[in-house]
């Protein structure tokens, strides 16, 4: 579904090319103006020019560059993924912490310039879908990543031609973390966000795509989950419900580190975090932090490997992705990072305890965000969010 949508959008992005090829036959004022505008248009960030990665071999001086989240994420993935991959395949590889998925405008400029800031990185659904709409990603022939069939279907979007746009890297559920120094009783239900006894105690993400819409539509009986979020009137009803959270919010944050810092200084009592972060926080200081799988389920989220089409090492990138799909590699990542594996049931042998830690009640019980809605209505939704939700 996403692949088809992304494929349709890609066609609309071809127009700037025409602009660049416009020729001036007569210097009439109108034509000069239109050509200048077209030229500026091609200058100004259009996503379909140039690029086209050549397929070379990574070398020690020019290794395959892979990017993922920094901090503990990078430390563990370096140890459990990057180093073993290099040892086994001999392919020179280097990793870096980065935020390319949040910088699509800059990435678009880089791809236009024929540069690949990195050869592959993890992107969450909205960034992955938008990047595809902009024509930023290299698509893989299925034969380049034979194990893709083991991946959960929703984590391997394809083009109409059957090419792979992205392949799941890991699942990242969202859970509720309580700072026990501020709030005595752990938050164990999403309904706690509406509880006025937590006035000025909670931290919330400031962006409209923080999935509060999905949570609200899912947990209140008056809404029909994803279906309610299909219409503007449905979304407005949900937004009105979210307004009731505002008194409880003491901090609206952009990056999770801001909320974590607020918890460290006891300025924040609770927040929605990625489950893997919550598990680590709780493991590091059980007296202070409690990571709860809410009664109504975790919020399902995931990250997928994408390859900028300006990468010179698309084959090596595909080989790396193939490596990540090995059951033992998925197992190691799951055990150390507490993210959810992307392989279908029955392929991995995972203990019940670990399964509960990373999945909670399981994918069937999870709240599934309506990603396409966030893209289709982004401008309108952004305005409503600023008007109705943000202080």
């Amino acid at each position, binding site marked *: 579904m996403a692949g088809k949508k992304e494929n349709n959008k890609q066609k609309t992005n071809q127009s700037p090319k025409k602009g660049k090829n416009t020729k001036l036959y007569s210097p009439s004022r109108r034509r000069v103006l239109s050509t200048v505008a077209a030229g500026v248009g091609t200058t*100004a960030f259009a996503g379909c020019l140039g690029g086209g990665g050549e397929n070379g071999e990574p070398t020690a001086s020019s290794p395959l560059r892979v990017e993922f989240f920094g901090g503990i994420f990078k430390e563990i993935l370096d140890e459990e993924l990057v180093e073993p991959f290099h040892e086994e395949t001999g392919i020179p590889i280097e990793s870096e912490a980065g935020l390319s998925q949040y910088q699509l405008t800059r990435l678009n400029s880089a791809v236009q310039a024929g540069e690949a800031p990195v050869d592959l990185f993890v992107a969450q659904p909205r960034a992955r879908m938008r990047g595809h709409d902009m024509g930023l990603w290299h698509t893989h022939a299925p034969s380049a990543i034979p194990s893709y069939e083991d991946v959960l279907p929703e984590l391997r979007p394809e083009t109409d031609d059957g090419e792979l746009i992205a392949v799941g890297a890991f699942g990242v559920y969202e859970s509720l973390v309580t700072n026990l120094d501020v709030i005595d009783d752990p938050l164990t239900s999403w309904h706690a966000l509406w509880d006025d006894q937590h006035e000025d105690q909670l931290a919330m993400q400031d962006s409209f795509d923080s999935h509060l819409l999905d949570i609200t539509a899912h947990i209140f009986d008056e809404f029909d989950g994803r279906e309610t979020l299909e219409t503007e009137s449905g979304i407005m009803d949900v937004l009105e419900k979210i307004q009731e959270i505002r008194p409880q919010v003491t901090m609206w944050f952009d990056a999770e580190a801001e909320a974590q810092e607020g918890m460290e200084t006891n300025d924040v009592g609770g927040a929605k975090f990625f489950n893997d972060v919550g598990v680590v926080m709780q493991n590091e200081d059980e007296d202070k932090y409690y990571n709860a799988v809410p009664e109504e389920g975790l919020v399902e989220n995931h990250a997928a490997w994408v390859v900028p089409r300006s990468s010179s090492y698309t084959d090596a990138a595909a080989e790396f992705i193939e490596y990540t799909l090995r059951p033992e590699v998925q197992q190691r990542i799951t055990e150390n990072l507490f993210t959810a594996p992307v392989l279908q049931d029955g392929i991995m042998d995972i203990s019940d305890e670990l399964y509960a830690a990373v999945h909670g009640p399981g994918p069937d019980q999870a709240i599934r965000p309506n990603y396409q809605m966030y893209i289709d209505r982004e401008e309108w939704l952004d305005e409503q969010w600023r008007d109705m939700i943000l202080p």
Partner: protein
Amino acid sequence: MASDDVVGGKPHIDRAVNGLQAVRNRLSTAISVHGRRIVVGYPVALLVLFAVVPAGIMLVTSFFPKPSGEYYSVGFTLTHYQRIFDGQALGYISTTLFIATITAIVCLLLAFPMAYGLSRFHSRAFQRNYLLIIIATMWLTVIIRTYAIQILYSAEGIFNRFLVGVGIVSEPVLGTTGLFTVISGMVYGFLPFALLTIYASINEVDSSVEEASMNLGANRLQTIWRVIVPQAAQGVLLAAGLVFILSSGSYVVPRLLGDPNQWTVPVLITQQISDQLNVPFAAALSIVFVVIIDGLFLLGYWLYKRLVAVSSTDPDAQSTWSKIELLGTNLFGAVPDKIADRLPVVLRVYLWVMLAVFVLPLVVVVSVSFSPSSFMRFPPSGLSLQWYQSVLTSASWMSAIGNSLLIATCASILATSIGASLSYAIDRFELRFSSQLSVLGVLPLVIPPVIVGVAHMSYFLQLGIWGTRTGVIIAHGVVFSPFAFGLVRRGLLNIDRHLEEAAATLGATRRQITRTITLPLLASSLFSGALFSFVLSLNEYIIAFFLSGFGFNTVPVEIFASLRYNYSPDIAAISTLYIILTTVVVYVLDRRFTLSLWD
């Protein structure tokens, strides 16, 4: 200009002035045609290429359509402008103006007594060391500066603990985000600019005039009001304008210290580009914002000129200004002499208090850098050098430091060369378009940095310098050139032209005059311009973020990115290294210029 006042109908003076004028004319014509062209053409070309053209691209982009859920394409629509005037963008604009105005007022109220007290009641050595410490706070990268404020204002921070401890409040009142925190961050960041500007103005006021005023019966407050304020007014207004523009263009402070209702236009613009990928709307917003900010700036300047014109043409007229002046005189006259005479003591204490306020975040940052824990905590629980080791052995931090120093050095040289040559051309050549060139000289300053970053991104991509150090150097060099322009222009106006004319009369060539007279007299202005540009470039985040691409990072970009993952003390360690390094550089250079820097 000065000669008109002197002539006054006296034939011998008239002849002498005419003679000097003739010498001056000969001096001007002696300048080779090519020399003039280069001096004029170099800054004009750079400013047009890297300030005007990107602004033009921005203007064109603002008319491109961008359907929801898609990327934008070439076309024409006024939708983005309609959206600005119909919707919530106006709220962001008024928030920005409110915060910038409050910041400018607070900075003036705090900086003026500081500058006066420093200038009048302390030795030159004390003045130099005091300003050096204030300058050191400017070396504190704005991101770490905001973090230091968050530590101090946190629920368990020293301010809240003090206020609760002494019983002034029952629970913490200061927050890590909010309007007060944003204003604090802005004032802390921009007060040094106001202080240095006002200090320079007050220093130029002849102190014997003050003595004369007091000998004639005015108390010290009345003297400040009637003697210092009018003479330093231009400097004070310049400081206000500078702080207003810097505040309105600030991104990091409102983003990190503000709640969403304190987010300013630069924050909205950045979010529109990064989150919404809505470049045309961001471009339209930029255009509207720049027009409003610059309109207000010009309005303020026009009002000032009008006030000055009225009071100078008819001192007895009951103009608004004269009414204000009279009100102030009466108000300060009502203050008993005993109290007014204690002003020096009060200002000395005040200076120490302000110094403590300025130094506190430095103390926080330096202390945290020695923390043994992996969180930035104040006070730290022990002593460790691990974060210095971490920074000094980290390839990415060392690379970022190298990039920042290289870019700041080159950008400051570029900014100074642009500003100096343009101001020299305006001052020394009789150009037909000198007023337009003056506008061109300050143009980069009145465009908020986020807009510069966005405007240059596509342009530099086309030029093949996007994602390169050269691109960031050019952008910083052009954007910060107005500081050098203003300072050198002021320096040139202060040079006694008779010295140059005398040298010309005695047969010195233009090159000799420039080398032996003009440049030495301009040295401190040039150095101040370079220093300002260097500091600003070193700490600049948003332009570097948009233009550095993915190939390299500067220190602010690296810090901002790392804050997404955690608040680690290595950020404090690198800030401390920054402070030490640059303070030593300023100190050494200051001794080289034998204290003239602060004039």
